[in-house]
């Protein structure tokens, strides 16, 4: 039933002259979640940024539902269906919470059975943000910024969510809720997601597949269940302690 949504082939990218990613390939089906794991500095963020068009791409291809994403400028990728939550959140600091959402919002895509994501829907999901609607970006607590970053990606009504450490700085109970919400959105609304996390167990539980990066290359790729069932393998891939 579900088609391949994202097809990444032999992707290499980096910053300036430095190449960080080498020949990365992966694919993701519609309505599924991919856990992107790896030690520190292995290129997870770089991969996410590359999908969003914020790095310098040296080779390879990215296709989203048949569209050659790698040929599009950064701002055109959002229209093509990418919703990005950058690692440092990057809330627009001179906009209010509401403006942060409305400035980037896009109408939902036609044909979807589910209600489109609007600022109102985001406020329902994070009531905290509704209370802080008129605060400027800088006047939010760390966790509130994280919620806003997620909400801001959702109102783009993307087909693919890129979540870069979305749980950092969130209270445990919100972490739980957010994970549940992501699982629900992908399951019910056919959204796909790539999630980067420091705590693999938390996201493997809600993911379908998993990719592990090391030094900019894919060193493991399989189903999330398999990986979750093999703690020793996980340890080996991710090294230290976990």
């Amino acid at each position, binding site marked *: 039933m579900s088609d391949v949504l994202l097809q990444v082939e032999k992707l290499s990218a980096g910053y300036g002259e430095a190449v960080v990613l080498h020949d990365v390939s992966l694919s993701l089906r519609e309505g599924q979640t991919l856990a992107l794991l790896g030690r520190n500095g292995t290129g997870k963020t770089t991969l996410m*940024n590359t999908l969003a*068009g914020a790095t310098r791409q040296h080779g390879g291809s990215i296709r989203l539902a048949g569209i050659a994403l790698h040929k599009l400028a*950064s701002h055109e*990728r959002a229209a093509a269906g*990418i919703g990005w939550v950058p690692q440092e959140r990057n809330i*627009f600091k001179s*906009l209010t919470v509401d403006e942060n959402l409305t400035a980037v919002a896009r109408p939902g895509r036609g044909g979807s059975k589910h209600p489109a994501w609007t600022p109102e829907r985001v406020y329902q999901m994070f009531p905290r943000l509704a209370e802080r609607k008129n605060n*400027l970006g800088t006047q939010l607590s760390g966790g509130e910024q994280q919620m806003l970053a997620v909400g801001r990606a959702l109102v*783009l009504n993307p087909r693919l969510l890129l979540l870069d450490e979305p749980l950092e700085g969130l209270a445990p109970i919100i972490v739980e809720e957010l994970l549940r919400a992501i699982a629900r959105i992908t399951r019910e609304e056919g959204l796909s997601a790539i999630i980067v996390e420091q705590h693999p167990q938390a996201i493997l539980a809600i993911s379908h597949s998993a990719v592990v990066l090391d030094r900019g290359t894919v060193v493991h790729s399989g189903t999330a269940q398999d990986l979750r069932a093999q703690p020793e393998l996980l340890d080996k891939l991710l090294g230290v302690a976990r």
Partner: protein
Amino acid sequence: MLTILFDGIAYGMLLFVLAVGLAVTMGLMNFINLAHGAFAMVGGYTTVLLMQRLQVPFLVCLPLAFLVSGLLGAVLERTLYRPMYRRPHLDQVLFSIGLTFMAVAAMDYFMGSSQQIIQLPAYLKGRSEFDTPLGLLGMGHYRLFIIAVCAALTVALQFILARTRFGSRLRAAVDDQRVAAGLGINVNIVFLSTFAVGSGLAGLGGALGTEVLGLDPTFPLKFMIYFLIVVAVGGTSSITGPLLAALLLGIADVAGKYYVPKLGGFIVYSLMIAILIWRPHGLFSRLGGKS
């Protein structure tokens, strides 16, 4: 004295039209463009040339002045200004002052250093007087015209910035270009159009101001202080701030010179300092934001 109030308002509004473009580039784009006056000068000279050489009617010259300056702004934005956005403010100052110097000398070379004078059409020249309960109100038609243009502009700008998403998209792009682009905002277009409109407004201001303020190649340097005052006092985060600041300064300047002519420039500067010490972020800045 109503006439004085009227003159002050007209003068303030003229300052506003001249400075509002700067409020846009400086406040919204966070770019210190001291060459703003140069665009105003281009607008002024466009009008002078069109009227003197081609006998174009004044009212037609105004939009043309806007277009010429705006176009020039767009071209310069693409070619020179763009790499400057990410530079430190001091580099921006140096760069834009350099451009101003060049513009001043170039204008001098092509147009000569003397004051340019335009002849307004007859219907803008006169003056109407009314007897009101509060005394005689004399309104110069041209000043009335300035007020009308300025009011229309304010409404239009306010609409664009508040009612459309353009304002917030622009600020988003300024805050973080990379992420704004990643979230679907076409940063280049946003900057280009903003800069062009800012320059165009300067050009319009220059065209309107030629009659009242005079026009010679030193215009950009002579009036730089006034632009800065309006923007600093008004704050840079809205359109109404600079408008009110310009009105306040215009009225204070005119009334001060009328009632206490001996104090000359004191009034404006002291008022400015007092306001800035009292409200360091400008009179009407957005609340909060400690920086």
